[in-house]
């Protein structure tokens, strides 16, 4: 009953006219960001974070969260109509989404992906509502040693998921850690790597780096790939089909798919580093293995579209659990969300839900509303998104440069930060080009200072002994879970990779 009362309180906070407007804007913008190839939720969040500065914290966090999960809805529209995923989590949706569209079933595919996203997102929020307070309870006994281990767990799992390029991932993380050490050392007051600059005393701010890496870096990479020359390609004409709405058979045949993929997606989403992409690929693979007609997968099977769509949205919700209850982001997108919380002076973690119940439950309640809004937007605003897809990249690109530059400046009125953002953009391009991981860099930049502070506190408590990490029961648990994840996640990664390559092969063959 407590949870229900908390949720009702959250709804009363979330349902104000201005918050609803912020939520709708966030959902729409998130979908637009998802529709644009090359830009995922992390890019959208980083670029638009400065826009939320003039708002009140609850409205701003609601809007940013809506951008985050809205991008998952939007990314699929291009997967279905263009065979081009808007971002990596919707790659699996091209396997059957595009064949469905080519078979004259684009309308039902678009509706079913919206419904699947809604189901995945809503089941995910229901599970957050139930599990987040439990996670909070468990993590209340955590101290600095556990926080250090959690930060390390977040980094390790992300690096394990990078796979064969792990060395480049570690280098990326070390760059992030190094950037995180710039500024005055809070314990001794000594400047580190400030080189006499007053602007660097406060450290390297997270936002210019995130906007540079995810906004400009991705844009430069898209230009390198020639997206401004080739255009978007031919869009399947969904509006000339006889039947727009799904058949009863579509609903009946996918109802268990939605249930299975929601749970699977959520569980994978909770694991730091695993994320929506792995969740969607795993759900696709699972669905094909339990299907009575596995041979139809890759040729336009509705369950093949519904499974990854449900899973990637449930995973986005799942990723909010470690963020809200442990203060540990498991991905680049949730790292940007964490930065947003920190900007408003709020520190997600074990006591967050207890100390900020209005914000925490307002955010959770807003996710129910956001998913409902997104269901309506993603069905009825399809013509709008098709028009956005048609905007040439050569016009969109320079506009993104403008938003990145002016958005970065608007945060602290700092030219240095703006120049830093341009620098990060250029470095981000080379990182993408040469197989490094901008996500690991950003995660390390956020987690680095937290980890350093926690480690120094830990060793002060233990008088310099590292044995504290195995003497405390919660620390031992976290160590055990980390070892299990490091052993288990490569299997998940391999399964995801296998699904992706077999999906591509089937598409090539069909």
């Amino acid at each position: 009953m407590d949870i229900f009362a908390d949720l009702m309180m959250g709804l009363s906070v979330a349902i104000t006219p201005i918050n609803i407007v912020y939520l709708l804007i966030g959902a729409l913008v998130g979908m637009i960001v998802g529709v644009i190839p090359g830009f995922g939720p992390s890019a959208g969040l980083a670029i638009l974070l400065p826009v939320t500065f003039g708002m009140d914290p609850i409205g701003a966090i609601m809007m940013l969260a809506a951008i985050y999960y809205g991008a998952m809805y939007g990314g699929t529209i291009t997967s279905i109509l263009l065979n081009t995923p808007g971002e990596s989590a919707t790659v699996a949706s091209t396997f059957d989404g595009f064949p469905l569209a080519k078979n004259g079933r684009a309308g039902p595919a678009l509706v079913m992906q919206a419904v699947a996203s809604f189901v995945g997102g809503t089941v995910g929020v229901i599970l957050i509502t139930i599990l987040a307070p439990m996670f909070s309870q468990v993590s209340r006994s955590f101290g600095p040693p556990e926080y250090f281990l959690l930060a390390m767990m977040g980094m390790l799992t992300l690096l394990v998921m990078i796979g064969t390029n792990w060395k480049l991932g570690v280098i990326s993380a070390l760059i992030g850690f190094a950037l995180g050490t710039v500024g005055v050392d809070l314990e001794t007051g000594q400047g580190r790597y400030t080189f006499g600059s007053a602007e660097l005393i406060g450290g390297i701010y997270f936002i210019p780096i995130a906007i540079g890496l995810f906004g400009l870096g991705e844009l430069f990479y898209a230009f390198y790939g020639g997206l401004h020359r080739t255009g978007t390609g031919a869009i399947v004409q969904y509006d000339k089909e006889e039947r727009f709405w799904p058949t009863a058979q579509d609903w009946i045949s996918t109802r268990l798919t939605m249930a299975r993929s929601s749970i699977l997606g959520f569980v994978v989403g909770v694991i730091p580093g695993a994320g929506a992409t792995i969740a969607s690929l795993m759900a696709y693979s699972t669905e094909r293995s339990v299907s009575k007609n596995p041979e139809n997968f890759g040729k336009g099977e509705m369950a093949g579209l519904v499974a990854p769509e449900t899973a990637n949205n449930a995973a986005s919700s799942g990723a909010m659990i470690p963020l809200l209850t442990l203060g540990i982001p498991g991905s680049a997108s949730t790292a940007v969300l964490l930065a947003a919380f920190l900007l408003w002076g709020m520190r997600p973690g074990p006591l967050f839900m207890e100390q900020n119940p209005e914000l925490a439950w307002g955010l959770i309640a807003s996710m129910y509303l956001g998913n409902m809004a997104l269901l309506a937007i993603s069905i009825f605003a399809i013509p709008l998104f098709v028009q956005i897809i048609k905007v040439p990249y050569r016009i969109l690109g320079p506009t993104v440069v403008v938003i990145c530059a002016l958005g970065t400046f608007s945060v602290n009125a700092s030219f240095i930060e703006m120049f830093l953002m341009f620098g990060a953009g250029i470095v981000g391009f080379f990182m993408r080009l040469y197989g490094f991981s901008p996500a690991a860099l950003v995660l390390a930049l956020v987690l680095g200072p937290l980890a350093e502070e926690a480690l120094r506190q830990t060793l002060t408590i233990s008088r310099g002994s590292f044995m504290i990490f195995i003497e405390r029961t919660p620390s031992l648990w976290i160590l055990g879970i980390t070892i299990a994840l490091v052993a288990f996640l490569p299997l998940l990664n391999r399964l995801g990779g296998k699904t992706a390559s077999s999906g591509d092969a089937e598409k090539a063959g069909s």
Partner: protein
Amino acid sequence: MRIAFLVALLAAAVFYSYTAFADLGFMTRTGRLGPGFFPRVIGVSAILITLWAILDELRSGRISRDGDARAWADVAMLMALAVGYALLIRLFGGMVATFVFLAVTLSILNRGQLVKNMMVATLVPAFVYLLFDWLLNANMPPALIELPI
């Protein structure tokens, strides 16, 4: 040329480590971890892992081909325009710099569409001004050199 990028990172890691060892103490006078502890661990790890990656690259004998010249020309041009835009913002402020940047960039990327380009170059700064300065009360970059317009 991934190896060139790795060598540049190695140079940065060596400089970072040198500063950590030369300027930042490992321990404080009270026997706690000092400001140099984390940077030293990061710096040494970065040097070792970057060297490993460079050796891997050399051992694999790959000669990386970084796309065609046209792709490089396009991205280099956009980067140069973006850097020019950053300098223009510092000199002439957000509004004027944005108009000039968009007008120049679109005239290169979107040739033969003068009217459309001018419309975008005018409407985008106007929209951004309305959003940041008027609606969100945020900062727009001021001009170092005021133009008589």
